[in-house]
């Protein structure tokens, strides 16, 4: 008999031996013990985790003549024939070769015949998702109500491709990838049983590249044993995997973090020359950066697949850079991984990623930016106090700067007031009281009433023309004199143009007349005069110096005490 690979030789022969699928084997064992056997099972899960094995075990247990508990005896003729693959009552077919409706029709014909030996006939259909839609539909009736002696076991790696009508007729078991610790212990058991020498440090690498599949792990182990002449050691395993050793990957990541482009490019070159799958290197680099990030954020974590020394190395790596830099590296390499798969020059893609990573921009956390802004503000406040200006310094010059404008507005108003056709409803009381005398502290006489009325105007305009309302929203009434309401608008020439537009102006004027007693006309002030006035103030100049800014607009002081900008 020719050599049998480990994955076949060590295929579990009892439910107990199935690794890492405890909930499933337990359910099946209980079902067998109590005799509650369903007529159709669906085993779903990734490759190499025990779907076909469990299906065969179920078949074996059902057909075993000498079974007392849930486990098959393994000694009776049925069990032995099944292991040899000669038992006619277990029909194992694969969905891909028997995918058509004709094959399913044949199957339906044969289902009716009684089993040859035992009480059951078990149909195991592997990769069942490959059946055509018509074949699935032809199977539905049989699957729902098969003859009493038939049990179907469907196995698939892609349950999402199966019709719901089939899924709903089966008891479904989802097989999980095998946990790294379990993989490791079962590999150790097999190596001991095979009496092979092995280097324990090789196992983590083996486990990691198996990605939760026991068959992958065993195939790899087989190759490694053939390569190492019956011995498993870390170095030859890495060579076989075409993988960089963990130390080399760490050196690569270290070079990236230290912004050493030459070393990083050298590492890629070495990997490419070694015939390494660059996707693997990229993925390992991502993993390395990820771990550094993880250990930086959660220093006391100890990942199960890392030795203490490795953990320390990652921790040290992460200590030198900021979280943002690690995130940037992750982003660059995750992007590169995608490109790597599609590009005809995977190496160039990885090199680009390495260069980007070593030349990463200095990422600054928003917190530190905010801290700096706060510091600047603090300094500004201190300077203002030292300069002997009132606590809210910006407001005074702003208000002063408004005075000439008001004067200008008033000088134009008398002719306009002549053409007022009818006096406003409440003229006598309001007009004089509200108008501002040139010298009398300008905003001070503007009562809350005017503010509130102006708000109504803004709200009304907002409803009728939101774009215009938005501009007015930023404005404050500064004066009401001789029927002219002057409003300071914050904004640029665009806003001014918008308000200067005839239709818009009329709209606002109407609204003003409606809501503000005594106001007939409406004028705006967006003046450079304000800006110039503000610029002269020492506090404003200090602010300009700190922020390297320009005075864009001057906003009158509001209740909260806004500052000129």
């Amino acid at each position, binding site marked *: 008999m*020719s050599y049998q690979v480990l994955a076949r030789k060590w295929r579990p022969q009892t439910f107990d031996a199935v690794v890492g699928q405890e909930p499933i084997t337990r359910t099946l064992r209980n079902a067998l013990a109590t005799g509650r056997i369903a007529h159709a099972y669906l085993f779903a899960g990734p490759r190499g985790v025990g779907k076909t094995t469990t299906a065969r075990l179920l078949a074996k247990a059902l057909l075993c003549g000498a079974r007392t508990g849930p486990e098959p005896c393994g000694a009776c003729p049925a069990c032995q024939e099944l292991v040899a693959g000669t038992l006619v009552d277990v029909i194992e077919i694969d969905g891909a070769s028997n995918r058509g409706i004709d094959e399913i029709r044949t199957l339906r014909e044969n289902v009716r015949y009684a089993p040859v030996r035992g009480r059951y006939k078990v149909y195991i259909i592997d990769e069942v998702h490959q059946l055509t839609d018509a074949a699935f539909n032809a199977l539905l009736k049989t699957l729902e109500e098969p003859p009493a002696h038939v049990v179907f076991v469907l196995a698939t790696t892609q349950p999402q491709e199966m019709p719901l009508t089939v899924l709903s007729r089966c008891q479904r078991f989802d097989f999980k990838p095998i946990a790294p610790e379990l993989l490791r212990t079962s590999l150790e058991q097999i190596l001991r049983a095979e009496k092979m020498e092995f280097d324990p440090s090789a196992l983590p690498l083996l486990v990691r590249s198996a990605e939760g599949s026991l068959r992958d792990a065993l195939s790899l182990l087989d190759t490694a044993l053939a390569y190492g002449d019956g011995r498993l050691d870390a170095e030859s395993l890495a060579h076989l995997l075409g993988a960089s050793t963990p130390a080399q990957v760490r050196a690569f990541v270290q070079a990236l973090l230290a912004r050493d482009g030459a070393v990083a490019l050298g590492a890629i070159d070495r990997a490419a020359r070694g015939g390494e799958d660059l996707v693997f290197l990229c993925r390992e680099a991502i993993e390395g950066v990820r771990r550094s990030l993880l250990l930086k954020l959660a220093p006391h974590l100890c990942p199960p697949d890392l030795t203490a020394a490795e953990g320390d190395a990652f921790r040290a790596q992460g200590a030198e850079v900021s979280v943002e830099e690690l995130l940037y590296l992750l982003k660059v390499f995750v992007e590169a991984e995608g490109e790597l798969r599609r590009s005809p020059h995977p190496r*160039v893609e990885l090199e680009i990623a390495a260069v980007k990573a070593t030349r990463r921009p200095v990422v600054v956390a928003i917190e530190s930016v905010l801290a700096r802004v706060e510091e600047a503000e603090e300094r500004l406040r201190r300077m203002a106090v030292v300069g002997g200006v009132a606590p809210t310094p910006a407001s005074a010059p702003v208000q002063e700067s408004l005075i000439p404008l008001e004067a200008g507005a008033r000088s134009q108003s008398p002719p306009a007031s002549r053409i007022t056709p009818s006096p406003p409803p409440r003229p006598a009381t309001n007009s004089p009281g509200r108008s501002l005398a040139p010298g009398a502290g300008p905003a001070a006489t503007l009562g809350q009433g005017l503010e509130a009325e102006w708000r109504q105007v803004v709200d009304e305009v907002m409803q009728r023309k939101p774009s215009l309302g938005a501009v007015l929203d930023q404005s404050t009434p500064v004066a009401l004199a001789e029927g002219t309401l002057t409003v300071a608008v914050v904004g640029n020439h665009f806003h001014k143009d918008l308000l200067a537009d005839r239709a818009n102006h009329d709209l606002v004027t109407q609204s003003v007349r409606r809501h503000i007693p005594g106001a007939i006309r409406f004028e705006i002030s967006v003046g450079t005069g304000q800006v110039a006035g503000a610029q002269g103030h020492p506090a404003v100049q200090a602010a300009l110096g700190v922020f390297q800014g320009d005075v864009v607009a001057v906003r009158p002081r509001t209740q909260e005490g806004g500052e000129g900008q």
Partner: protein
Amino acid sequence: MAFEAIRGQSAAVDVLTRAIASGRVAHAYAFVGPSGVGRKLTARAFAKALLCPSPPRGGEDEGEGVGVRENACGRCRACRKVEKGIHPDLMLIAPTPPATNPRGTPAIRLDAIRDLERWAALRPAEGPWKVFIIDDAGRMTPETPQAFLKTLEEPPARTVIILILSQTRELPATVISRCQVVRFVPLGEEETVALLEARGIDGPPARLLTRACQGRPGLALAQDPKTWVERRDLALSILAEVGAGGAGALFKWAESLGRDRPQVEQLIETWWLWFRDLLCVKAGGDPRLLVHGDRQGDLTGAADARSWEELLAGLCACREAWQALQGNVSPRLTMEVVLSRLALRAA
């Protein structure tokens, strides 16, 4: 063709010869590695070693590092049959166009696998094994690997199936998981040069070609080195000329070369590697990493003249141009766009 003729794949050859020596020959192998490095050659050598009824014991081959017991004699009837490709126990499956359309895309189809299964069910006709080599296994139609799984996992006794593919991800993980993966690596520079020299290609072109094919002598051998160098120089002179002469030169070159898709592909390839070299120079990489090592002076000058962003944008432009060509965009348009982005620094 025996194991000792295979250069630069000592790891792969070791796995196979040791498997024969220790009797641990698996039923399924996946030979994974870039094309042109000797995968098929090794598969044939392996088949020959398995099928040879009279392996020589002791002999002059010992110095090659390949144990003699597991090598083929190369003289017996079986060996000669394998070499001629007429051994009844060796079956080579390669992608074929569909039966109905001889000009269609070649692929490995369900029928080929059914054929294989039928043959595998029989006993070996002459030798101790039946060997199946599936070349370019990555080009299977989507349903084929699935139909193959059962056979691949538990084939009849005395069967060895060898899949040849360039990357493991070309086939579903369910297939690869059933095989022993044997990796093939690009050859080192000196090995490739030696191989090319043995075929009569030597001097500077051989070295240049070696760098450009990145350790895949099979690709280098498929080219005429002189033409290759000429075309390389042309590509670089176009880049320089358009950079100096502006849009006029660009459209002139696109007009004269833009109809020839393979040539445009090669131009873009050259520019791509050129920009990669520039990036490498700018990052301070080892000069030995450069593909266009003979033009190092030009590279340094050009790298200084461009910013990092320009270089990265250039590489991006090359990649997009290549993708455009794969997507059947007109080669001339592609060339115009990529040239304007590379030489005229258009966005």
